């Protein structure tokens, strides 16, 4: 009985000592020992494949969040399909992938299309006609993508297709919010200010009408 008591005390002391050492970060904690290590990617070089010169006046940035989902039938031979054979009640035979995507839509004017025909100067007066604004970029990156529901195994191509759907949704929503009209207005303000700084007194800046 006495020996059992001594063993118990010894065990408690050992647990206490381990707890103290783990608390001081001298030994790994139980959680760390049993938890899975994070998967980290290796440092690989970045290769520059193309350099492009442009002149895009980016005037509006719209940040938005959309939800996209795709449902498909369970593939033949998958565990869910096999489970259906032994199940007395019918099982849900579809799989879903739901993504929450935060993206940015940039709109602005392509100033490379601004030819010499669009600029008229007479003394301290200037008239500039710029092309109409358009959506320049829809940015959806992995850092803004959250996999909300993933049932079954989805290929990279299937996920990419769903993200492309999200991009289209972002474009539609931004267009509905009048992003192009706002971009046109902002481009006129920016260019008018720029021309004013260049010493012009009478300035006319307009958007090309198609």
């Amino acid at each position: 009985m006495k020996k059992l008591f001594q063993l118990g005390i010894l065990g408690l002391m050992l647990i206490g000592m381990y707890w103290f050492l783990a608390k001081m970060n001298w030994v790994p904690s139980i959680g760390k020992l049993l938890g899975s290590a994070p998967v980290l990617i290796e440092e690989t070089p970045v290769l520059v494949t193309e350099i492009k010169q442009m002149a895009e006046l980016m005037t509006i940035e719209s940040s938005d969040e959309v939800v996209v989902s795709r449902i498909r039938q369970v593939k033949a031979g998958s565990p869910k399909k096999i489970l259906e054979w032994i199940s007395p009640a019918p099982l849900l035979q579809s799989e879903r992938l739901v993504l929450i995507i935060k993206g940015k839509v940039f709109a602005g004017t392509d100033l490379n299309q601004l030819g010499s025909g669009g600029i008229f100067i007479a003394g301290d007066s200037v008239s500039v006609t710029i092309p109409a604004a358009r959506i320049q970029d829809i940015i959806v990156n992995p850092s803004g993508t959250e996999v909300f529901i993933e049932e079954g195994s989805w290929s990279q191509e299937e996920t990419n297709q769903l993200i492309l759907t999200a991009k289209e949704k972002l474009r539609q929503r931004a267009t509905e919010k009048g992003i192009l009209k706002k971009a046109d207005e902002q481009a006129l303000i920016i260019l008018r200010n720029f021309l004013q700084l260049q010493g012009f007194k009478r300035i006319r800046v307009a958007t090309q009408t198609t």
Partner: protein
Amino acid sequence: MSKIGQYLTGLFLLLQAGCKPSPTPAEKVLAIREMGALATTEYTVTKMVKADDNKTWYKLGDRKILMSIEARIKAGIDLTQLKQEDISINGKSIQLKLPAPNIISIQLPPDKIKLEYQEIGLLRMDFDQAERMHLLEQAEKQVQAAIPETGILETTRIHTSNWIQQFCLQLGFEEIHIEFTDQNPKSLLR
């Protein structure tokens, strides 16, 4: 026996009810921001994303993945930062002090993300989309960190100077001097 059958049916019905689709979260517009960035340079870069999930001692077997990505980086200057004191005009001669070039955007086009190779041991699970997204997020950060080494800001200085020079010539100036306010690049990224 029939009772066991009833229990099993009940259990399956419960499981099925638990698997019913949950409602999808609501969408919302976050913000619309006015800006005035003149993007003059776009770099396209590629990168391999390599990961090996072999650091957990109790997981047996290999689990490796190799993906390739492309990133498009846009850089330019913020025209809204240009002030009266940055421009001096003397007849047909103009001197401009332009804001320092900045990175405007980085994008990883989804259609350029490709799974090149995957090796999964018998006792291991496939990399699911959430895990892959986490790996791609790390790759995105690595691309962002490698931007200064690509020399994009130096190229942007040249491209911006070229375009402003051309624009000023169209406006009737004959002598154009361009310099940049500072050499410390500051990111426009939000």
